[in-house]
């Protein structure tokens, strides 16, 4: 019987059955790598562990041995899941959270829109609405905090140099993990769990309970695998949580809480643009929705200062009504007049819209799945994800600065006959967020994995162009966005060249 797509079968995730992490190097010098916020790797004290001859240590070994003796199939699967890498798995979880919360609030019956409230996160609309700038900032803070926490972790690992349980006692097995000479105190898996769980208090307060359960699962799996004792875990989690608090403190003062703006702010954009004799953007939603996070450009970047944000602004887009703009609109109209199936594919592949992990999340997925093949240590994986996500957060800031500085209309606003192959995001056109995020990501990723640079650049081009052929951007939004993104990415390269990791 012809079955073109095959019979019904269970669907397998690409990363379900990854092998246990197998680093090419333990990166023992990582305790000296340049941190993002921590002033020194030992800013937070971690007490010396007890001797391996101590009865307390032996008791911890009994815990591992009893768990290993009675290991169930489910527990084995959980070990294997986390053994693929803490940085990888927590990033996947974060992408899932962003997708879960990436839903625009529905309008009230009086046509106003409710705004998520961090003081009441469990009421509709749930806090946060993890749209692209929010998501970029969330990924940025979490990846940077994870990196700093692991630098501190590596510092103490090499300071105390306590070997893994299976190295101390041969009757402790290394179950479903690769043995390593990396010291186990404090546990990097617990550091990762602790820093991530703590960051939820800022970024996804409605998920604190769920992530706490994941933390317990990860820590338990680590102990069962023989990789760490409970003392390793306890010290690691505490360290992770303390580092997170540093980042939460920065976040509370980084201007993101004011990014929504007020009705006065929103109408100011219209006034400023109109006073320049230009056509202001308006929302194409019904009812009209306030612009998305219009003051996000004020958020403090990681890789450079706010003055640099302004310096990265490109030249203005063509004015509405000019010959050039009319040509640009006509080009968009042409693309969607009889859209090809291939163009639809490109648009959907890169759309990353409502209900998804957003474009930064897509680049995280691309990076994480490529990093898995690079045999990075956890600290190097974290350092690279931090570089990528700080880049994406700063790209969001720069992009939002440009969008709201020029405040120009979408093609469909100028030509309502332009129907689109994906939803029109509720913010101005110039420059394209997808293009900025993609240009930035491709730049730093191409530096980190030079063999893939051409592939990343091609992907960034396609991602940018997907917004043109989808009918929601002019060509200039995409081309300029890619260049702006590249400029942001170059700051990440500068940092990468000087952080001690190479």
């Amino acid at each position, binding site marked *: *019987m*012809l*079955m*073109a*797509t*095959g*019979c*019904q*079968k*269970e*669907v*397998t*995730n*690409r*990363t379900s059955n990854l092998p246990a992490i197998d680093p090419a190097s333990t990166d023992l010098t990582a305790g000296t790598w340049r941190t993002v916020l921590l002033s020194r790797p030992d800013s937070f004290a971690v007490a010396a562990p007890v001797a391996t001859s101590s009865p307390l240590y032996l008791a911890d070994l009994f815990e591992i041995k009893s768990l290993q003796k009675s290991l169930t199939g489910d527990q084995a699967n959980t070990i294997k899941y986390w053994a693929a890498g803490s940085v990888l798995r927590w990033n*996947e979880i974060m*992408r*899932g959270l962003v*997708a*879960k919360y990436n*839903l*625009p*609030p*529905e*309008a009230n019956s009086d046509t106003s829109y409710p705004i998520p409230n961090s003081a009441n996160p469990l009421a*509709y609309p749930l806090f946060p609405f993890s749209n692209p700038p929010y998501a970029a900032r969330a990924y940025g803070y979490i990846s940077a905090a994870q990196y700093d926490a692991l630098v501190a972790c590596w510092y103490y690992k090499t300071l105390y140099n306590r070997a893994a349980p299976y190295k101390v006692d041969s009757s402790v097995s290394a179950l479903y993990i690769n043995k390593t000479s990396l010291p186990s105190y404090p546990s990097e898996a617990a550091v990762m769990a602790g820093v991530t769980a703590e960051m939820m208090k800022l970024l996804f307060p409605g998920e604190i309970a769920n992530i706490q359960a994941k933390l317990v699962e990860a820590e338990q799996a680590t102990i069962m695998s023989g990789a760490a004792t409970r003392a390793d875990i306890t010290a690691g989690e505490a360290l992770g949580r303390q580092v997170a608090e540093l980042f939460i403190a920065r976040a509370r003062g980084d201007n993101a809480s004011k990014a929504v703006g007020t009705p006065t702010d929103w109408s100011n954009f219209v006034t400023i643009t109109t006073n320049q004799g230009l056509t202001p953007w308006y929302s*194409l*939603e*019904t*009812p009209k929705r306030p612009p998305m996070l219009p003051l996000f450009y004020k958020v403090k970047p990681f890789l450079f200062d706010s003055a640099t944000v302004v310096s990265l602004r490109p030249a203005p887009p063509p004015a509405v009504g000019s010959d050039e703009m009319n040509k640009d609109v006509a080009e968009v109209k042409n693309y*969607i007049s009889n*859209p090809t*199936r291939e163009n*639809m*594919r490109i648009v*959907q*592949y890169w*759309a*990353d819209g*409502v*209900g*998804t*992990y957003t474009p930064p999340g*897509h680049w995280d*997925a691309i990076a994480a799945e490529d990093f898995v093949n690079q045999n990075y240590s956890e600290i190097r994986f974290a350092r690279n994800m931090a570089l990528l996500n700080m880049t994406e957060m700063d790209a969001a800031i720069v992009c939002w600065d440009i969008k709201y500085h020029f405040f120009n209309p979408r093609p*469909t606003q100028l030509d309502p006959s*332009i*129907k*689109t*192959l*994906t*939803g*029109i995001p509720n913010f101005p056109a110039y420059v394209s967020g997808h293009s900025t995020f993609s240009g930035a990501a491709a730049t730093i990723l191409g530096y980190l994995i030079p063999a893939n640079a051409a592939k990343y650049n091609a992907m960034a081009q396609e991602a940018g162009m997907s917004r043109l052929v989808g*009918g929601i951007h002019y060509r200039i939004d995409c081309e300029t966005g890619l260049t702006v993104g590249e400029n942001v990415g170059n700051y990440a390269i500068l940092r990468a060249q000087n952080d001690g990791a190479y």
Partner: protein
Amino acid sequence: MKKKTIFHLVTAMAFSLVAIVAKAQTVDDAIMMSKKQWCNGLTYMHSSWNEYWEGTTKRNNLNLGTVTTQSVMYMSSYGITDKFNLLVNVPYVWTNASAGTMHGMKGFQDIDIDLKYEFYKTKIGKGDLSLIALAGFSTPLSNYENDFLPMSIGLGSTNLSGRLTADYQNGLFFATISSAYVFRSDVTVDRTSYYTNQINYTNEVYMPDQLYSNLFIGIRNSKLTVQAQLMNMYTFGGFDIRKNDMPFVSNQMNSTSLGAHVKYFLPFVTNLEVVASADYVIAGRNVGQSQTYMGGFFYILGL
């Protein structure tokens, strides 16, 4: 001809946010073609909704307005023997939203091929009871975009179905009850990950199986059929559209509709039958509350 045969055009089940025209093609009546009779038909369907169920919550969406699905369908049925028929349906579908900016979609949707076998016929009292089994196969005819609901013209799965129909006619009155179980293949989407009630890092989507059921009650003779119809679609699993989210191929799509259908052999032209129907969705989950109108004609040849 032993008897005037009538080919029942299955009312397009434009229940879902996508008018799943292909699903209508599981033939749900008890009419058989005689050996070497070949029936060809063309129908036009118009289905529209402005309210839909987001999970179990009914709402409208001012960024969609009224969503309209139209189709033209070619239908063929051939009597291999009096008891064994081959049916083929080919739909062309196009969609449109009256508000908002979503681009309409169009294309050849899913071909449907069925083998229909009347395996039992008997007299009960003054009436006739017949039992019919169908095996059906459907698959997309074109590589249409399935991940752009509610504008997509179809969901993209390849299906195998098994159906049982019982029909009882006594004098002019008849009743038909029928049910089909549909096995659906996984579908592929263009994106590399999607969120259901968890995030999935794959471009393959598991599509739960479905059950289609219908009940017809009415009057029927060799020239005319007039029936009231109750139709139901149930999906075994899937997830609900979240508040203000977009629909997705593997939502749990359920619906119940009420309607009427007429078939009439024109008096002045032999072997030419006209059909018409109207249906309205009275209950649903993750589908549009559609009202659907269909009209068409069939011509029967003897080969």
